[in-house]
Every structure is written in structure tokens, then in C-alpha cells.
């Protein structure tokens, strides 16, 4: 990337981010693209600063790694929306902003008279993005939900876990990130339209609806054939019209591998390559060696055939390490990957070669921290990590004095009054 390309793609635009953890990633993504995202927290700091893990395991609102991870590329101010002065300040900021992102319960901002109607009056170009578990209207709109209820009501949990045991979510919350990133897409669609027409609008994001995409097409089995896809543990269903299920996770020497007997061109190539690899170690039975993979049809395969094939493969994999498997699948152009932990993700040479990891300096912690870097590479315009997540009220002076023209004495007074 050349120096004159270093400006972010969305550099001219400002985002006011009033979200809780459900929406953090939306503002961060716009910030990654160079927009000036300002996180607005309540005085004393956002409650999400109490979400762990913490820097050196020290529970401290200024040291939440959850906060660090999802709020970098934002500046931060504090503001009390419950006070009239706070609301007046918010409207002054919103008058010049391009996006306001919020995740309060539906109706909350309206009640404070700083909702859609008020914002439209002072800034008709504004894109207002509301991110909630279920959307702004409808029978569940007032329901409260955290990650697990969102995963439940979207149907995701019904597809995850062993039959006979409770349905599962992913242990590290997923729905917040999904919702934040899809909210960014919605924000930019409204932005495109605003740039064409001069008119802003309200984007109503539902976490429940977002998670329907995470597990994509499972519901179409019901739509087309009145068949209900269910949780099947470590097995994949829905690939064969006979109802055969394929093993996905295989114990190996030091953990698990993800390998699936697939059809299609890539699947046939993979199956042949695996048999060759097994044969090289004298572990491929004759019936596998003799199989004509070009005629193998995954959509019509029966459970019996699958079981017969999987038995020698399982035996073979128990003697293979994750690293060895990864090396071989890349070399032999096979489908499949090891089940990686965060540790192994850091060890993957692909990331180092692509300069994926990025260091951000944390002067108050006297160190720099390694972050997952840009979500995309652009040939023109930068998408990079520019700044670590803000400390509580870190940019109050910069924003309120530097940009709204307040004096330091006025800011001090606001602090005393509990406005900032």
C-alpha cells in the first residue's frame, strides 16, 4: 500500500456509536474503513467494560480485552443522555454526524426526544441505525435477550449439539458480532442511498434475523420437503437424499480433524488424494483403492457405504497429527482442516505472510498488543487498525472543546454536573 493511499475509504464521515456489545462491531468496521467513529459512553464508562477476559486477568473497566477487541478504531467520549444538557450536546454532535448507531430498547431514544423524529429534524441526511435483539416492532420487540436467547430464537441452537443432550450455542458469543457486521452492511446501503439522494433513513437491525444467515439454508429443507434438520453432533446431515450422515470430526494424534467425504469435483479429488496418502502408508484397503471416485455420487450415497468407507479412514487419522494433516491437505490439494485452537491460529504461517496481525500501542499499559488486523485488503484506500480502544472519556476535551468550541471551564462544569 502506497503512502498516498493511506487515507481510509470512509475518511470524510463521522459515526456516533451509542451501542452496547450487540452493536460494537458495526462502529468498529466503519472505523476500520477510516470513518471517525466516536463511542459515546455513559459517565463512568460503558457496562460492557466489565466483560472479560481482562488484561493480565485484572478485572478493571480500563482493561477489558472484550472492549479492546471490538472498540478499537474509535475515539471515546462520555455523555449522560438522561440529563437535558447531555441531550442538547448529543443533538449538537448528531447535527454534524453522518451515522448514529444505537442499541437501546426500542422507544428509549424517542422517550428522551432524541429519537428518529428529533434527529431527522436537525439532520435529514443522517443514517440512524438501531440494533436490537428482535427489531423495532413486533411482539418480541420489548423482549430482553443476550446471546443465548438470540441463538435459541433464531433456530441456531436446534442445529448444534448431540441428539439427546441440550442444544448448544458457541461458547464464545457469536450473535453480537454477526449482528454488528450485518448492521455495518445495512448502514452502508443506507449511506449509498443518502449520497445519491441527500436523504437519510432509519435502519432497523434484528439480531434474531441476522442469525438466520449464520445457519443459512437449514430451514429450506422444511420449506421444500417438510424435513426438519436437527442437531447431529459431530456429523453432517443434509448432503445425501438418502439421509446418510457423514462424520465431520475425527480424533487424531493430538486433537481433532475436520474431514468430510464430499461429492462434486473437489470432493472426488480429495477422496482420491486421501486414498493415495493412506496407500503410501499401507493403510488403504483394496475396496477403497478400487473405488471409481469419478462415479461417486454423494447425493445418492447410503449410510452403509459411508460407514464402510469411514472405518479405515478413522483408523488412519488416529496416527496423524493436526500439523501433519494441515501440511498434507495443502500439499495434496485436499479438502479438510485441523480443528484449530487460538494458539494454532497464531502459529499459522499464512497470517504472518499476509501481515495479518497488527500491533497497537497501549501507552497506559506500557506495552503494545497484537490484534487481528484488517478484514480486507484494498488496492486503493486503507483498511487498517489506527488506534486502540478509547479509555473512559479519553477524547472529551478533544471533541467537546476542540470541535464543539467549549471552554475547559465549561467542560469542567459539565463534569461536576454529571453530564460528561
Amino acid at each position, binding site marked *: 500500500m502506497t503512502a498516498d493511499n493511506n487515507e481510509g475509504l470512509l475518511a470524510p464521515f463521522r459515526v456516533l456509536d451509542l451501542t452496547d456489545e450487540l452493536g460494537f462491531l458495526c462502529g468498529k468496521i466503519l472505523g476500520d474503513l477510516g470513518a471517525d467513529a466516536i463511542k459515546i459512553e455513559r459517565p463512568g464508562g460503558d457496562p460492557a467494560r466489565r466483560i472479560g477476559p481482562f488484561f493480565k486477568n485484572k478485572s478493571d473497566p480500563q482493561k477489558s480485552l472484550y472492549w479492546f477487541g471490538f472498540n478499537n478504531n474509535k475515539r471515546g467520549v462520555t455523555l449522560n443522555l438522561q440529563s437535558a444538557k447531555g441531550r442538547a450536546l448529543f443533538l449538537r454532535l448528531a447535527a454534524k454526524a453522518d451515522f448514529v448507531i444505537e442499541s437501546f430498547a426500542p422507544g428509549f431514544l424517542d422517550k428522551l426526544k432524541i429519537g428518529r423524529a428529533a434527529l431527522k429534524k436537525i439532520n435529514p441526511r443522517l443514517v440512524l441505525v438501531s440494533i436490537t435483539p428482535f*427489531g423495532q416492532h413486533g411482539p418480541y420487540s420489548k423482549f430482553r435477550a443476550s446471546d443465548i436467547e438470540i441463538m435459541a430464537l433464531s433456530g441456531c441452537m436446534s442445529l448444534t449439539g448431540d441428539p439427546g443432550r441440550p442444544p448448544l450455542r458457541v461458547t464464545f458469543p457469536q450473535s453480537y458480532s454477526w449482528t454488528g457486521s450485518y448492521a455495518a452492511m445495512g448502514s452502508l*446501503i443506507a449511506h449509498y442511498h443518502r449520497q445519491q439522494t441527500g436523504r437519510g433513513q432509519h435502519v432497523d437491525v434484528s439480531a434474531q434475523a441476522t442469525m438466520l444467515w449464520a445457519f443459512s439454508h437449514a430451514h429450506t429443507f422444511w420449506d421444500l420437503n417438510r424435513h426438519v434438520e436437527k442437531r447431529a453432533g459431530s456429523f453432517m446431515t443434509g448432503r445425501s437424499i438418502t439421509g446418510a450422515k457423514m462424520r465431520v470430526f475425527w480424533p487424531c494424534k493430538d486433537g481433532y480433524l475436520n474431514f468430510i467425504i464430499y461429492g462434486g469435483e473437489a470432493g472426488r479429488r480429495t477422496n482420491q488424494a486421501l486414498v493415495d496418502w493412506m496407500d503410501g502408508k499401507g493403510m488403504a484397503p483394496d475396496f477403497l483403492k478400487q473405488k471409481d471416485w469419478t462415479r461417486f455420487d454423494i447425493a445418492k450415497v447410503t449410510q452403509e457405504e459411508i460407514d464402510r468407507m469411514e472405518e479405515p479412514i478413522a483408523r488412519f487419522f488416529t496416527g496423524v497429527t493436526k500439523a501433519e494433516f494441515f501440511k498434507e491437505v495443502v500439499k495434496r490439494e485436499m479438502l479438510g482442516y485441523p480443528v484449530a485452537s487460538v494458539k494454532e491460529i497464531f502459529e499459522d504461517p499464512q497470517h504472518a505472510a499476509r501481515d495479518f496481525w497488527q500491533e497497537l500501542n497501549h501507552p497506559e499499559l506500557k506495552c503494545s498488543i497484537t490484534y487481528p488486523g484488517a478484514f480486507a485488503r484494498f488496492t*486503493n484506500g486503507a483498511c487498517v487498525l489506527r488506534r486502540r480502544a478509547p479509555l473512559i472519556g479519553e477524547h472529551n476535551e478533544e471533541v467537546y472543546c476542540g470541535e464543539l468550541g467549549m471552554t475547559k471551564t465549561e467542560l469542567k462544569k459539565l463534569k461536576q454536573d454529571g453530564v460528561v
Partner: protein
Amino acid sequence: MKALEGIKVVEFAAFAAGPVVGKHLADHGATVVHIESKVRPDGFRTHYPPYKDNIHGLNRSGLFALCNNDKLDVTLNLKKAPVATALAKKIVVWADVVIENFSPGTMARLGLAYEELRQVKPDLIMLSSSNLGQSGPHAHHAGFGSQLSSLAGFTNLTGYPDGAPQILYGPYIDYIAVAYGAVAILAALDYRKRTGKGNHIDTAQYETGLQYLAPILLDYKINGRVAARNANRDPDAAPHGAYPCKGDDRWCAISVSSDDEWKKLRRAMGNPRWSTDKKFATHKARKANEDELDRKIGEWTRGLTPAGVMKKLQKAGVKAGVVNRMCDVYDDPQLKQRPQWVELKHPEIGNMHYQRPPFLLDQTPPGPSKRDPLLGEHNEYFFRELLGLSQMEYERLVKEGVID
């Protein structure tokens, strides 16, 4: 009016990661052309159930339908170089945006690398979405999202602590890359409007997935902790899980993240004696006795329907949600009210629930408004009307099997 009217998009793409980016743009009014060929149709058409009535057919795929509504579909056999290459370039000149998700290197082999295309369309925006990225030692390794979700750490975080990892249904990580891919295109469109410059965007599905795991990646780097799967447990809440309800394999999720919520849950359960025990009095105590707590809550939920539990608890101010099954989502009162699906008639599938975006724009309501196209359905319309080929040219290309 829809938000993205006027934007022209061409997809050299198949399966989910590329086409669903195009679907979101099409839902908002962009003109999107999905390029396939008869010799090589989209993989969802050929080997990825469900098919209507379990009968395989190129125009019977539920998954293709879900990912391709509101698009035009043409069949262009890119292997027929140089005529097909020239025609593909002509389509690129027509378009604002190219989306491709072939394995890295394929577009170059077809004579359609970004550098080539930029010669004919200097301000082109092209999204290349791949498994592991366009560069690096593993760039050429192709794969599916259902397995990349393991390399990127997700399945290791899914399952019971005593058991194997659990699958995340479908190509989970593909749809993460979809969100980022669409975001990248929209940002590039804005940038082009202001600077006149196009863009080649390289998204690795792997890297987009890792965005979702930032805190636990930091946790390993700083604290050396390797995050592990722990079923439905959460360090900041107890109870926190799915609890059995009345009915066959029916469940309701409940979570309590403060003493105040615990008080409300107890009241909603009728303050049973066990719940007043000191071993459940504080968050710390509830965490220490979580197995027993889960059993007790389960004994209470077992007598109620999942919807009954949810309504009762939500009314009491406690977070709760039915574990919807795949047969429940179309009738879920909230999704139905939004409405989350548009039912459209498809000539071979019949009535199909086409999925709306998870965000609704109040001034420019999104589609779907047209069913997914049949294979090659818009050949004549697209090549003749939109691209402006003469009837003679068109017929010649069909005869040569370039348009197949």
C-alpha cells in the same frame, strides 16, 4: 425505490461466499448478473441438497434459490477462450462491480485477472473472496466454509467440555465473509464516487472470521489462555443454558446475569423452597453449584411449553427464548411480523420462502421481489437488451457454445 438502484454487478461466483454478497445488493435494487455455464452450473444446483421433493434437478435447489433471488442468470462457458474471454470483458465494462470467489489464480488463468480487467474498465471494483486470501503460502488452497470454520477456531469452541467439537451447520464462516464483502464493496463504491478510483478487494474468509474472535485471540496472546468449548456456560451468568420443556425434544433458553434477575426468576417460578437456599444466593454461589441449579431449573421448565416459559419469564423481566426448530421459524410471531420472508412462486420449486435482509431500511424497503432465475434464463434479455449484442452476434455465440 430501492437503495442501490443503478448499481450493476456481475458475479463470476458460485456457492455462498460470492453469490450471497450479490444477493444482498440485489435485495436493495442493484442489477446483478450471475454467470454460470451449462457445462459447469453453480455447485448448489448440482450437488447440494435440498432439492424439491428430493428429486435432483438444476432448477430444484433450495439453497440456490435462497442465495440468488432478484438476479439475472446467464450461461457463459469461460473455457471457450478467446471468444468467451472477450465477452466476459464486455460484461465487465458494463458492470460497476465484479464479485468472484474462485480459488485464487483461477480468474488469471481465465484471462480475467484484475489487472487485465482494469485495462478495459479503469475504475472497476472487484471483490475476490477466497478461503485463505489471494497471497501467502496457503493462498491456493481451496476449501469450503464448513471446514474453514474449524481452521478459524469456531468448532473448537462448540461442544460439551467432555466431548468432540460440534459442527456449525452449513458453511458458517462464508456468511461472515459475506457481511464483510458487501461492506467492502459499498465502501469502495463511495470511495470511487469521491476519487474516481476503483479497487481490487481481497477478503480471506479466514481473516473475516477471526474478527469475531478478537477478545479471545488477545486473551491467548496476553494471558496465555486457550479458549475452550464449555457447552452453554457463561462466566457472567447463571443459570445460563437451554432447559427441557414439555413436548418432544423441546427447549427454552434462560439466562440470569444479576442478583436482581435471579430474584425475578425465583418469583416467576413461585419462589420454590430450594431457590431460597444460600448456595444459590449470589452469582458466585450459583456458579459454584451450577449443575444442581440447572437440574432444578429444568425440573420447573419441564412442566411448561417453551413458549410458556419464555412468555412467563419475559413478563417477569428475565431473559428467555424458545429454542426454535427449523419447522418453527416461518411461524415465529416476531419473524412473521417483520416479515422476514417473502413467499414467491418458482416454476419447479413451487412456493418458496425467500429471505429478506436482517436489516430493514424504512425509506427504501428491500426485496426479495423476484424468484431466483433458472439456469440461463436471461441469456437473450441480458446479452441482447442490456449488453447490446446484435441478434446475429448472439446467435453465433450460442451456436459456438460460448453462450451455452
